[in-house]
């Protein structure tokens, strides 16, 4: 100790060289040793899967609705083939004059027989079993229940035994189920976001508690709440960013695997559930949202903890 020597000058030359870059970490760095980055990774992966599932269901429902909601099928139920054919032609004429209808097509008997062959066998077209005539009708827009009833009434005035089936009505239970699944996905995302915030809150409280002595020293040396908060936020940011990237990769891998499985079904309806580029943008925003959520939660947690100190 050289206390007899003059105290070093306080003023330091502007151009004094720095032999050390950067600043010390006031909190010990754990190199992702703690559980929190991994917990965040798992939660982000679950959100990515839930979001991708929800978006795929939405796309599937929208595509199906777009295909079906602007169309109706008219059945002519008549045992006598000649009368049935005449009724079908009369119904097609009525439908063709209706302002809501854009196109009318009487489904040929051969096509009907082919459709029914899996159930009725090769004799479906023999005429032994009376098959209703079918008319595919394209509408200019999605018709509501009143308009469908009006269409039915127009047919009833001219053709006996004509029945209008709105295709979107058949699929209403399916749409409802899909909508329920979408709400479930949203609820899952909300729950996982809550769990993420809770995990960060717990981690921040624990970190603050573990380092309360360091925090007190920083305070006593003139450190401000903002400086202490920044120290903890850097730690939260690092852990959350790591967890978010790992979670995104895990989630994308799971989505890709599920996508490949569903694609193998080779179903037209499932094909409508593919993800578009806006969907991928939404999925890419999930880790960013996760990191922001973690930062805000960490900031609030540390802010409350600091208020209990002098």
């Amino acid at each position, binding site marked *: *100790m*050289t*206390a*007899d*020597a*003059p*105290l*070093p*000058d*306080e003023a*330091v*030359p*502007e*151009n*004094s*060289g*720095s*032999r*050390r870059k950067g*600043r*010390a*970490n*006031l909190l*010990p760095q754990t190199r992702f040793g703690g559980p929190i980055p991994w917990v965040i990774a798992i939660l982000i992966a679950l959100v990515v899967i839930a979001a991708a599932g929800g978006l795929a269901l939405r796309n599937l429902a929208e595509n199906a609705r777009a295909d079906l909601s602007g169309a109706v099928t008219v059945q002519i139920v008549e045992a006598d083939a000649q009368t049935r054919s005449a009724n079908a032609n009369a119904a097609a004429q009525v439908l063709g004059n209706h302002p809501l209808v854009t196109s009318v097509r009487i489904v040929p008997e051969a096509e009907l027989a082919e459709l029914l062959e899996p159930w009725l066998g090769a004799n479906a077209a023999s005429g032994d079993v009376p098959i209703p005539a079918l008319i595919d009708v394209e509408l200019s827009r999605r018709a509501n229940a009143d308009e469908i009833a009006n269409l039915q009434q127009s047919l009833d005035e001219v053709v006996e035994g004509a029945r209008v089936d709105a295709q979107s009505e058949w699929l209403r239970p399916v749409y409802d189920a899909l909508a329920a699944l979408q709400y479930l996905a949203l609820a899952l995302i909300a729950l996982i976001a809550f769990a993420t915030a809770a995990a960060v809150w717990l981690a921040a409280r624990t970190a603050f508690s573990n380092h309360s*002595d*360091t925090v*007190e*020293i*920083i*305070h*006593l*040396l*003139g*450190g*401000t*709440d903002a*400086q202490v908060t920044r120290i903890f936020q850097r730690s939260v940011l690092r852990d959350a960013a790591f967890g978010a990237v790992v979670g995104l990769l895990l989630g994308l891998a799971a989505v890709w695997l599920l996508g490949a499985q569903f694609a193998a079904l080779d179903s037209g309806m499932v094909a409508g559930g593919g993800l578009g580029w806006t969907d991928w943008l939404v999925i890419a925003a999930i880790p960013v949202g996760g990191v922001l959520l973690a930062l805000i939660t960490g900031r609030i947690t540390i802010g409350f903890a600091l208020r209990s100190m*002098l």
Partner: protein
Amino acid sequence: MSDRPAEIVKFDNVGLRYGTDPEVLSDLSFTLYPGSFYFLTGASGAGKTSLLKLLYLAQRPSRGAIRMFGKDMITLPRTRLPDFRRRLGVVFQNFRLVQHLSAFDNVALPLRLAGTDEARVVKAVSDMLDWVGLSHRARAIPATMSGGEQQRVAIARAVIARPQMLIADEPTGNVDPDMALKLLRLFEALNNRVGTTVIVATHDVHLLKKVPDSLIMRLNKGQLSDPTGALRYPPRPTVKGTGGGSV
């Protein structure tokens, strides 16, 4: 110096209790002046550390008034405390070094927290470690340093920002007599050359004779038992700066 307050610390009827326990400090009224050297003595448990906690703004009193640097510390919002803490240098009884930081980074803390340019930090800390004879231990963490080395790091950290008031709690408690004397000389140097007000808490009465111009406060069971200054050595000290202390 004209902008300095005439008194650096003023306690008026201050009491301190922890929770619902009896008061550990009672009816403390005294004034400290800039540029003076004070010893705070008393047996273990007399309340020295509690009084120092009030002085280095780690604790608010249960009652009474405290003014420091011309401001009322009782009504001061906690968000403004850092401004005043940066005017203080504290050598804690158990050093309170940040264990995962090197000696260099521990000493640099007050400057970095004050937002000092990193190049200036490096130069100032290097010079300070040189001054306390620890240049070769700059990269060492506290766990690998001896008690004396840690104490010097703590002292270097306390004085690096040239505080207006230096508060040391039993700074010679863990070192041999030679080192204790060297530490006192260091505090004297700060007091003489920089004009820092120094307050050293000690239960070692032999130390009091080592700093001739010092003033002495004696705590006994939480009260200043010797306000007449009978234990001062020498009895009528000459205080530098704006005048003597009244205790």
